[in-house]
């Protein structure tokens, strides 16, 4: 894919090299918004971090673009984690992708929000292989299904575990011992 226009070229100083300071490339986000408005649903800047809310269908395309575009070069997927906003919230679930660049040292968070009825997200294991275990963990603890994942099994809890432990309506403690069925 072609890179952004010239005025978005950043020196490492502009892009920010510290968590104290700029930290995230807000200029790049503006360029992305201009070029691919369909990819950016919302941009949140808070606590010196930038978050882009991405439509679910576009997440793989956005990730592979951000990974290879010379201005962004987010070649390192630091983390994927799910979050449950609570059973009464709509949309209820979100999946956060924490991106990092090993050469430009900037960070970016991508966010996908999901309704409870339809917990499907395209996998990004095709972009970064490290996504494999992060997605398995999110599936295990929240029940988010990553379409196209090569090996979507539970990872921390036993395979016959009932429910998804980090959902807000899952109890903290139970009074019956766990037994294998």
């Amino acid at each position, binding site marked *: 894919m072609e890179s952004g226009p010239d005025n978005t070229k950043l020196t490492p100083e502009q892009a920010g090299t*510290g*968590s104290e300071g700029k*930290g995230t490339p807000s200029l790049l986000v503006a360029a992305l918004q201009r070029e691919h408005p369909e990819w950016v649903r919302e941009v949140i800047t808070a606590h010196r*971090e930038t978050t882009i809310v991405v439509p679910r269908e576009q997440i793989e395309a956005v990730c592979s673009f951000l990974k290879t575009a010379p201005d962004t070069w987010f070649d*390192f997927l630091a983390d994927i984690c799910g*979050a449950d906003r609570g059973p009464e919230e709509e949309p209820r679930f979100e999946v956060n992708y924490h991106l990092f660049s090993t050469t430009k*040292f900037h960070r970016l968070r991508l966010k996908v929000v999901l309704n409870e009825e339809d917990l499907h997200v395209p996998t990004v294991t095709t972009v970064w292989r490290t996504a*494999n275990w992060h997605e398995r963990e999110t599936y295990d603890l929240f029940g988010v299904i990553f379409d196209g994942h090569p090996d979507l099994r*539970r990872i921390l809890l036993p*395979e016959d575990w009932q429910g998804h432990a980090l959902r807000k309506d899952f109890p903290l403690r139970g009074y019956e011992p766990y037994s294998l069925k």
Partner: protein
Amino acid sequence: MSTTANIPPQFEIVDQPLDTQMTISMGPQHPSTHGVLRLELVLDGEMVVKATPDIGYLHTGMEKLFEYKKYQQGIVITDRMDYLNPLGNNLAYVMAAEKLLGLEIPERAQTIRVLTCELQRIASHLVWLGTHALDLGAMTVFFYCFREREKILNLIEAASGGRMTPSYFRIGGLMMDLPSGFERRVQQFLNEFPASVDEFHKLLTGNRIFQKRTQNIGRISAEDAIDWGLSGPCLRGSGVNLDIRRANPYSGYENYDFEVPTEADGDVWARYLVRMREMKESHKIVVQALSRLKPGPVKADAPKVVLPDREAMKTHMDALIHHFLIVAEGFDVPAGEVYHPIEASKGELGVYIRSDGGPKPSRVHFRGPSFVNLSALPHMAEGEMVADIVAVIGSLDIVLGEIDR
């Protein structure tokens, strides 16, 4: 965790008379899996065809527990994740919370954080070195390493009162200032430590058996290492010069003079050399931090978040009220979300905190370096001999308490 009731299709036993492959289970009680890791190995003779890590034996639902505890109560949970680097976990967690609160940490507190964290990094690397050498048959090194580590644990105990679970850092600063005489004891350790590192080098680096067991074993290229999300010494062992202390400096690391050791080969030997050199760099940082210790406050000026001094509570009514409210009800953290990465002894330790306001977090997630580094194990192990699996696991320096959380 797979069970007999539900065997994944790739592990179903199929009778094939001409098939020479064999599936064996390594762990979870195998001593060189450093805890309770189980590997499902498919072997062809002694060659590993497929390795599948099976984790979760130590899962205790810590991330769930955070949601039911006040922010300051979460600190003690973090100690129990990577139990070889508890101060690093404390630091990542409290810094994420401080980022949400927007607190400014006094300089003395930051210097003490750097000082103790670097001591902890040395202690963590010493356990790695001792157990890694023990796995490969060199038992003596283990005792030498634990002798040195004991000195560091004594220092951490002097500062915090805990050896393995210090919980020394608080949101907004430190639990308390360093005890008197601490600088002298650190100085004594610093004087002795370089000789010990030379001793380790004498025991291992020139040892031909150790070299044969580690060189050209478990190779991973720089591109693959980044793609698999490796971080810390494992990534630098593949020749990538990346250290969060340099890339996204925190706690004033940008003011310290230290090198980021890298080795190009990407094998077990390279990761060994990186960690050995890192111990010396940490020693350098501790020396600098010790010389920068100036008297001053160790807690931020935020009376609604930081517990007041005992003396102030006896004389000031408002200090007493703040103390009561912080302990009984906690403090409200503004709504928002942060991800704060630090360079822990094993790599990038990132903490994601999501707050809806109120005294308890809505979601806390730990990006454990061991978790991600272990996920790359199949890539490094496949094609190696079964005896070398032990060397590869040792070189990743995993702690199952953090992987399973």
